[in-house]
């Protein structure tokens, strides 16, 4: 069972929502659609599901063109961002509903419903109505309904976004585990790079209706093909600094120079945009050739166990990703160390022309 | 149907309206229209402009009947012109 989108576009009222997407999803794969709000994730999923029809292009399932086939004749399931359940049916009936419609016998339905409910840990609530449950439990119910029938494609449209982050962490892990043992195509849309990384599998990066890059998640992360992908697939966002490469050295914003080190030798002289991941800038030097930059603190965002430090100097704004809890005042002056051998370089068109050596091994 | 007391002019009138409606539907299917803003103080679609045109034409006719002794055909000609302006630039 595979799913292929061939030159798929969707235009709504003169606006292009999906622009010429080509995509193949392999059986048993877990695929993440990563993109900002309005990047076309939901639209793409609706096309895969058959809820909307593409303006152009074909959707092929297992070699069969299903472009015009209505959703109820495709074997898919979908979980939405909102907690969508039938409010007038009990949790049990909610989960059983797709099976009922498939005219399965009562014993089998009961077995499957209980099994799925247990798997998602909502078995104590089977007799309740969905609205009597907490948000997390409601979403589990929706997931159970999606998983109870053996769909060939399971679509998740930002299913965890309305939950507390702790619940998110837990459910994400459960999902990963659940799909390990299934042989269906899972598609999971999210705006958060970290979620894509945590879920693993493949990642497709979408921007303004266009597919920028698709591949194994770690590969896309470490080897972004272009600057937009790099920016979208990083949290906190990757630091982008304009620079010029000459015969001998690299200059950032006409002010900061460093010698062209072996790592960057391949670059021909010219204008580039350099990217450096927030976690690679440090408070202490890690290598001899790290650049020391005096900066002013904008804000230290602390996330329980890590710190995102926003700083700036007259020439650029930077974000640092530090492990542990670090408190700083707004406008405090500090020094940070900029790694010259962990740079990504993008050319004028935004195409990646260089990545840090170690990343290429991944 | 006798009780409806059909006359040729009214029959023609209603046939005309029906033809316009069918035509507008066909037009919409062939090339869907997008809401736009013309000289009217609100965004309108083609259908909205048609409605505004028909309603205002009715009032123009009434005004002619009430206020002048000019032949009603003059009003009709005026209205057709008005409709064209409205559909094109409204």
């Amino acid at each position, binding site marked *: 069972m595979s799913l292929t989108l061939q030159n798929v576009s969707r235009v709504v009222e003169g606006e292009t929502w999906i622009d010429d997407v080509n995509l193949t999803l392999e059986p048993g794969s877990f695929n993440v659609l990563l993109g900002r709000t309005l990047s076309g994730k939901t639209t793409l999923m609706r096309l895969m599901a058959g809820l909307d029809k593409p303006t152009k292009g074909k959707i092929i399932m297992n070699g069969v063109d299903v472009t015009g086939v209505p959703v109820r004749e495709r074997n898919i399931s*979908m979980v939405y961002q*909102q907690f969508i359940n*039938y409010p*007038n049916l009990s949790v049990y009936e909610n989960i059983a509903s797709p099976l009922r*419609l498939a005219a399965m016998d009562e014993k089998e339905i009961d077995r499957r419903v209980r099994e799925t409910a247990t798997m998602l840990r909502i078995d104590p609530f089977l007799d309740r109505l969905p609205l009597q449950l907490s948000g997390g439990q409601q979403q589990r119910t929706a997931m159970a*309904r999606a998983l109870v029938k053996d769909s060939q494609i399971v679509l998740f449209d930002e299913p965890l976004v309305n939950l507390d982050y702790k619940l998110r962490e837990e459910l994400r892990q459960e999902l990963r585990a659940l799909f390990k043992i299934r042989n269906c195509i899972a598609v999971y849309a999210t705006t958060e790079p970290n979620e894509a990384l945590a879920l693993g599998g493949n990642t497709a990066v979408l921007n303004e209706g266009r597919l920028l890059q698709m591949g194994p998640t770690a590969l896309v992360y470490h080897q972004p093909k272009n600057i937009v992908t790099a920016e979208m697939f990083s949290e906190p966002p990757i630091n982008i600094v304009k620079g010029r490469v000459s015969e001998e050295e690299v200059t950032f914003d006409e002010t900061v120079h460093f010698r062209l080190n072996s790592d960057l030798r391949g670059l021909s002289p010219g204008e580039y945009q350099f990217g450096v991941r927030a976690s690679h800038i440090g408070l202490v030097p890690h290598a001899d050739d790290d650049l020391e930059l005096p900066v002013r603190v904008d804000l230290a965002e602390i996330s329980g166990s890590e710190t995102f430090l926003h700083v700036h100097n007259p020439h650029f704004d930077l974000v640092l990703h530090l492990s542990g809890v670090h408190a700083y005042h707004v406008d405090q002056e500090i020094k940070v160390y900029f790694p010259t051998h962990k740079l990504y370089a993008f050319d004028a068109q935004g195409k990646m022309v260089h990545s840090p050596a170690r990343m290429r091994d991944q | 149907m006798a009780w*409806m007391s059909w006359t040729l002019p009214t029959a023609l009138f209603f046939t005309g309206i029906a033809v316009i409606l069918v035509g507008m539907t066909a037009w919409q299917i062939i090339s869907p229209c997008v809401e736009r803003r013309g000289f009217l103080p609100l965004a309108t679609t083609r259908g909205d402009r048609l409605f505004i045109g028909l309603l205002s034409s009715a009032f123009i006719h009434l005004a002619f009947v009430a206020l002048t002794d000019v032949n009603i055909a003059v009003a009709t000609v005026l209205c057709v012109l008005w409709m064209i302006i409205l559909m094109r630039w409204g």
Partner: protein
Amino acid sequence: MTHSTSPMTHNKSGSKEQAPVHSRAERKARNATLRGRFGLTLYLILLLLPIYWLVNMSFKTNTEILSGLSFFPADFTLDNYAKIFSDSTWYMGYVNSILYVTMNMVISLLVALPAAYAFSRYKFIGDKHMFFWLLSNRMAPPAVFLLPFFQLYSSVGLFDTHIAVALAHCIFTVPLAVWILEGFMSGVPREIDETAYIDGYSFPKFFVRIFIPLIRSGIGVTAFFCFMFSWVELLLARTLTSVDAKPIAAIMTRTVSASGMDWGLLAAAGVLTILPGMLVVYFVRNHVAKGFALGRV
């Protein structure tokens, strides 16, 4: 900033030994509520006075009515009601009214439900104009169509039948029903429909099993509004009926003019026309607030 300091001094005066502080705002709020209750009571009294007067009269004899004003019937009598319930020309009026109102409610809901669904979920050619055209019918004065109605229903042989009145009332109950139901349906997320289709429901099955239960209260409210407008209308109902389907409201007017003002009987008949409405509003009281905003807020 004279005002802003006053709560502070206020605090100080009450702060000794953490004794309760008097809240001026609290008192103000309480006074406002009291004023509101008083005003409402006054309004309700004025509102109910004419109705009370009618009820009062319906328990009096004609002699008492004409001999002077009194707030309570001195000579309490049920004769007026007895007369209505024993005379078939009277009570059949109620039966007729209830019959065509019920028919109207059923027809309106049956046709309005799918239409409202279409309006709330889909875009289609002419949708907005259709909606407006429906509403304009709700606004059209029945008097305009009186004569053609009479002839139309006569020509199809429906004159003086209940269904004729029910259908005629549809021109204002159906648009209203579509409007209200559309409001309620728009409140149901579209994703529920899609989930159902994904689960494998066909449209009719989904509509009946999932969707209709979801908008139960909307349906209740809509039925109430259909009832209300069909029950209170007289002009069309009177024009389209003569004997067999004559509504109570029309019978009242006729009887009154013929029998030289039987005030007690008239009052009793009037009281009886109010009761069904009160019964219906009682059932939907919890949803009626939303319904009055046509499901839209």
